[in-house]
């Protein structure tokens, strides 16, 4: 039965190819535009690490100016990054399953090939736990171990692109690379990895691609390098007292993530943070009320408002665009169906019920919807590639399975919205009127 209806629908579409392609084009255009911006919104607002986003927590504590809150607009929130000294302090805890402070630095890389000039690269300085905590995939080798953090071993992890550029790809584990004035040994090469939004550091842009190079954070002392991200400070320190004075200052520039698998763990860690801050208060620090915060991944992304307002606006506008396309279809379908009134009259006279006439035409609309939807998805993919190119974001936006399903869903809804009224009109026609005209 259904196969028959679909065959009839295809026959009917073939009878008037110009009109049919117009119908399909209208749906395709609407689906292309709306799916593209549904996808953009979906990717901005998506869960970058669904397997454990409710077990990863961003750590905040309020070391800000006793006279003035960190944020004038939101006085209740603690600062959005922590100090180096507090990172050291709380990393002493053994409660979290994994934990890592981190920041991004800009360092000089000397390519092994003599003909290449040195370059400045963004390097994520972090701890061994970064890789298992964020489930970073490796193509070769792996991350370093906690011992390398403790003993400050010169180890480095590269992403696939950097590995291609420096070593021409392949398994580079064990190879040596000069960064600043030291030789580092490659312990692992990442497989392609593109968490979106890049949740772990929203300050340098949640749409950014991950850095190409990773090394133990404590090399910050060796290189005396400041962050290439955001640094805020409210109190002076002696700038002439050397780098240690800077590391001991109240400057906030470190992002701190912990993995807490159970609620007991979470409670224990929360208590630990409170105790740590109370301890620090005795030293004359943390002049503001106790205000520690542990937000999980989605909570943190919401707090940081990583979905650009423009994405929401475009989502609304593009869905309305699809609606206009559907309204357009109503007109065309009405014309198409009513011009077939005599034929429908014959079918009705031969005993077809209103319901079956209605069904036949709805199926025809949905066939148009699906064909249009498929073309639309293709167009949508092109559209997203164009946006990727314009934004230069190394392919952040793309259709995945849920978005293909969403596109087809939108096409079916558009087909239904457009087809209901015309199909209803045609099935209500009195058969006799049109028989007379034959």
């Amino acid at each position, binding site marked *: 039965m259904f196969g028959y209806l679909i065959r009839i629908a295809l026959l009917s579409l073939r009878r008037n190819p110009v009109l049919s392609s117009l119908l399909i084009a209208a749906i395709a255009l609407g689906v292309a535009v709306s799916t593209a911006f549904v996808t953009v919104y979906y990717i901005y607002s998506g869960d970058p690490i669904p397997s454990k986003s409710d077990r990863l927590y961003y750590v905040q504590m309020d070391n800000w100016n006793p006279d003035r809150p960190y944020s004038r607009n939101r006085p209740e929130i603690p600062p959005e990054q922590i100090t180096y000294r507090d990172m050291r302090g709380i990393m002493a805890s053994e409660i979290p399953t994994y934990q890592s402070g981190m920041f991004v630095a800009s360092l000089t890389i000397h390519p092994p090939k003599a003909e290449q000039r040195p370059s400045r690269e963004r390097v994520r300085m972090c701890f061994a736990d970064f890789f298992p905590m964020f489930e970073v995939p490796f193509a070769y080798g792996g991350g370093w171990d906690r011992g390398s953090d403790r003993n400050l071993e010169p180890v480095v992890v590269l992403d696939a692109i950097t590995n291609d550029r420096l070593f021409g790809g392949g398994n580079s584990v064990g190879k040596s690379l000069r960064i600043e004035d030291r030789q580092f040994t490659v312990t692992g090469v990442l497989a392609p990895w593109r968490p979106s939004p890049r949740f772990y550091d929203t300050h340098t842009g949640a749409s950014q691609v991950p850095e190409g190079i990773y090394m133990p954070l404590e090399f910050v002392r060796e290189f005396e390098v400041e962050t290439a991200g955001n640094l805020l400070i409210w109190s002076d320190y002696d700038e002439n007292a050397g780098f240690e004075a800077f590391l001991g200052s109240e400057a906030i520039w470190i992002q701190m993530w912990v993995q807490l698998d159970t609620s007991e763990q979470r409670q224990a860690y929360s208590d630990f943070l409170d105790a740590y801050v109370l301890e620090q208060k005795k030293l004359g620090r943390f002049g503001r009320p106790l205000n520690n915060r542990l937000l999980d991944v989605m909570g943190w992304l919401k707090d940081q408002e990583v979905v650009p*307002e423009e994405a*929401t606006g475009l989502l*609304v*506008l*593009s869905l309305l665009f699809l609606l206009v396309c559907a*309204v357009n279809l*109503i007109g065309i379908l009405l014309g198409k169906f009513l011009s077939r009134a005599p034929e429908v009259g014959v079918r009705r006279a031969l005993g077809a019920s209103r319901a079956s006439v209605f069904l036949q035409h709805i199926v025809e609309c949905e066939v148009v919807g699906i064909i249009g939807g498929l073309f639309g998805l293709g167009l949508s993919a092109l559209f997203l590639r164009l946006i990727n190119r314009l*934004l230069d974001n190394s392919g952040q936006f793309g259709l995945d399975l849920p978005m293909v399903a969403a596109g087809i869903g939108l096409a079916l809804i558009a087909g239904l919205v457009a087809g209901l009224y015309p199909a209803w009109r045609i099935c209500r026609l009195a058969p006799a009127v049109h028989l007379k005209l034959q």
Partner: protein
Amino acid sequence: MELGPIFRALMHNPTRFWLITFEVALTLAIVVNCVAIILEQRELLTRPSGLDEPNLVVVTTDPFSADFAEDEFIDTVRDEDLRRLRALPGVKAAAAIDYLPLAGGGAITGLRALDADGEGQPAPFFEVGIGALEALGVELVAGRDHVESDLRPGDDEPVNLIMTQALADRIFPDGDSLGNSVADPDTGEVFGHVVGIVRQMHNAWPRSSIAGSAMLIPGPPYDQRRIRYMVRTESGALDAVFNELEPTMLAVNADRIVTIRPIAEYKRRYFDDEIVLVKVLTTLAVLLIAVTSLGIIGLTSFSVTQRTREIGTRRALGATRSAVLRYFVIEIWVITGIGLALGAILTYALNYALAHLAGAPSIDWPLIAAGIVLLWGIGLLSALAPAFRATLVPPVVTTRSV
């Protein structure tokens, strides 16, 4: 006028009427909202920065040799760099600078007038060498430029600074900025003295509401990690100068990474999202108008086909071709008119929703009026071809097939 018959005919078969009305209304709402956002973004992209944007190119050098740990060594290299840069044909001026205007990313502090209490004003600042005003192409309106003796005062000594008129107006609402001092709002410590005022200069965050607040502090700092110059070329000479810059730098000292990039490129990267948004919304609006126009053509053709016999009858009864044309034109004019009236309301409703959801700018009525005129015109144009086809219906049609 045939308004009476037109109305009765419309009400006799209202589907087409409602479809066009609804489509036109929705189109107006979407297009006007798109244009409002486009205009807002374009305003942001095109507002003057006070800088000589088309002729500015930035030379960034990142040394990797240990020699640069010595302040004296940096001074020697910097002096030589600047001497050679300024000697290049086509270069008008060059000066050392730390952060970049228009690039997103810089230094900011809070300041208030020394003899006033109250909150500090955000004061983004750049540390610059001698000749920065000329190298940036900004205009001094009062006071003086930095001179050698301003550079490198002792630690914690107040600096002689130059600020924009906009920042001066914020910190000194009474207008007595020149010669006065600014202080840290928390400690009350004197930060510096205002020696010069520039008309306009955007800071590192041209998107922000304080884009016009900027300060030039004598520097530049000894930072072994980065030495940077703003180079201003003669008008139109940027392309010619561009390729000379890297060799010039490496000839002075090759132990560094040299990056050359026009300031316009930094600005384009900073405004990436806005530029893409404008492109996307423009595409959306154009596509939508095309779709709606096609819809009106389709519905009018359909209606002409359906009414072929009536048209023939009218022609047989003595109606001229122009009368038939007039009938269809007035009809579409009435339908789109009603649609646009509804659309105006819908536009405000959509604007309200978008303002809440997405911080869209509010819409002024002239924009809606412009949208109405545009869509009215497009509605009429779209209906013309099918209406002309109607005039071709011969009176003889009536004699057939009934």
